[in-house]
């Protein structure tokens, strides 16, 4: 047998081993999360090695306990979810409102130093988030914005603008300029072209960019930790889960229900926007 045949056979087997392994490794933690979220803590301590839980051991009490407000003996995750949703929705809309004109300008108009502006956006990622966290912590404390959801939204907008502009710009570039020029010939103003032609054409990308921003804001942890730790009423789901998991008062399987509640909205959104997201993020990657 020649080397080619041997290698081909080896790789055709190896390939399936790799695929199976990767799927198990990526999916298992999520399966485990879901499994434990329906199990009372006593059962987990009794059988820590179970990969499958018999039906009679399952319970939905964990979800009820984690969602109920603190006054009713729960953990208040219902309220945390509301906070997270408000912050994430506000961030998504406001970021789009700022990023759409910005991306349009970067994609179309020949103004000064377009390259430098792109470089500036990239440079934003270069600074450790912690480096802007220190002055923002001090500054927002001084003007009373720190312990508020508004302060959080402002920071999230600034953090998501660069990636939004990147995603929108690469799509806007694919819309032929001739369409806009034709409209201009008919006497349409720049604003009118933007609102009547460009934005409707780019709607799918705008929606997926908005969903991506929502996901970033929903998942964010550091600034929620820095700004809101002292005030439980303002906690987001991420912050609530991390704060409660440090203690020993709340049982781990109840918190597991909390982490399912934190994860499910993201997975649902991801299912809707996957294609657009993956294409938007990697556009230009093949050019290096």
């Amino acid at each position, binding site marked *: 047998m020649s080397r080619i045949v041997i290698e081909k056979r080896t*790789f055709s087997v190896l390939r399936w081993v790799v695929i199976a392994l990767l799927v198990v490794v*990526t999916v298992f933690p999520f399966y485990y999360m879901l499994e434990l979220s329906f199990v009372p803590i006593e059962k987990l301590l009794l059988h820590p090695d179970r990969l499958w839980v018999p039906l009679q051991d399952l319970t939905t009490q964990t979800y009820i306990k984690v969602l109920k407000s603190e006054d009713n003996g729960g953990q208040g995750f219902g309220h945390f979810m509301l906070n997270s949703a408000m912050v994430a929705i506000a961030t998504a809309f406001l970021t789009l409102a700022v990023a759409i*004109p910005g991306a349009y300008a970067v994609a179309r108009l020949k103004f000064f130093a377009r390259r430098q502006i792109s470089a500036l956006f990239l440079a934003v990622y270069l600074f*450790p988030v912690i480096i802007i966290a220190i*002055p923002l912590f*001090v500054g927002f404390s001084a003007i009373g914005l720190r312990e508020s959801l508004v302060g959080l939204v402002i920071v999230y907008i600034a953090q998501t*603008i660069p990636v939004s502009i990147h995603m929108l710009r690469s799509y806007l570039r694919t819309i032929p300029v001739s369409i806009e020029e034709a409209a201009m010939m008919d006497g349409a103003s720049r604003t009118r072209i933007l609102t009547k032609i460009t934005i409707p054409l780019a709607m799918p990308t705008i929606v997926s960019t908005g969903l991506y921003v929502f996901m970033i804001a929903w998942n964010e942890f550091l600034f929620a930790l820095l700004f809101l730790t002292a005030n439980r009423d303002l906690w987001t789901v*991420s912050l609530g889960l991390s704060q409660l998991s440090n203690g020993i008062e709340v049982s781990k399987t109840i918190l597991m229900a909390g982490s399912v509640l934190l994860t499910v909205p993201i997975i649902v959104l991801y299912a809707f926007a996957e294609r657009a997201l993956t294409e938007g993020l*990697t556009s230009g990657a093949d050019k*290096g």
Partner: protein
Amino acid sequence: MVLPTTVIILAVIIVPVLWNLILAFQSTDFTTIASNGIFNPLTFENFAGVLTDAGFWGSLGTTVVYSITSTIGSIAVGLIAGLAFRKPFRGRGIARSLMLLPYVAPVVAVAFVWQIMLNPQFGIVNSLGTGILGWAHPIDFLGKAPFALMTVIAFEIWRYFPFAFLFITAALLGLPKDVEEAALVDGVTPLQNFRYVVFPQLLPVIALLSVLRLIMTFNKFDDIFLLTGGGAGTEVSAVRVYDQLLGSFDIGGAAANAFVLSAILAISLFVYVRFFASKGDED
């Protein structure tokens, strides 16, 4: 039209970065900032403090090990995944979407699941390890010195190989078919095909990924803070800055530490781009 964008980036990113620089040259805490604003006397104390502190160099070493190994690891796994998924098969679309879950899922949720999975008392890994693999004792993956750093690196690879996978898959799709077809006609083996035909064409995207991932992991805070809190030999620089800021309220020290970090990062990137990236272009 870029005005709103510029204003927000300026107010929430650029001004804070500059302010951080000023703070780094002042001996400040919350009371002096409240009374004097930004006009506190300037000093080099903080930088001297940072550079002579063994803790700083220790955390810098941990950060370098952490960011380089997890960058290489996540790109290697992403590359293997990209190649394995290259030829179509039934269910490839779904498998590919599942592959991206660790990357999109909330970090707090997945870090919590890992903590529970690795728990020495009731975690599945230890109970299977002692029960089936015959480990003598449960391993404290997140609380003991060599294991903790290895675990946070493994977590980082797990969470970010999908990112590399995504980029490499896109690059593989863009490869011209005729080159490989010609090579196959000439009778190359699959390994030779990878080594001499596919891999060289992937180098640009791998270089891009290395830079992006190095920047991201060098500044990483959430993942380590959530998994170990920076204990058991996992105190990376970002966690250290956080502890300085909120543990000891040493604003000036934290600012100086953060500034030194981004200076180191900026210099290494500059060197990289200057000497390696430009060479790649000429080839």
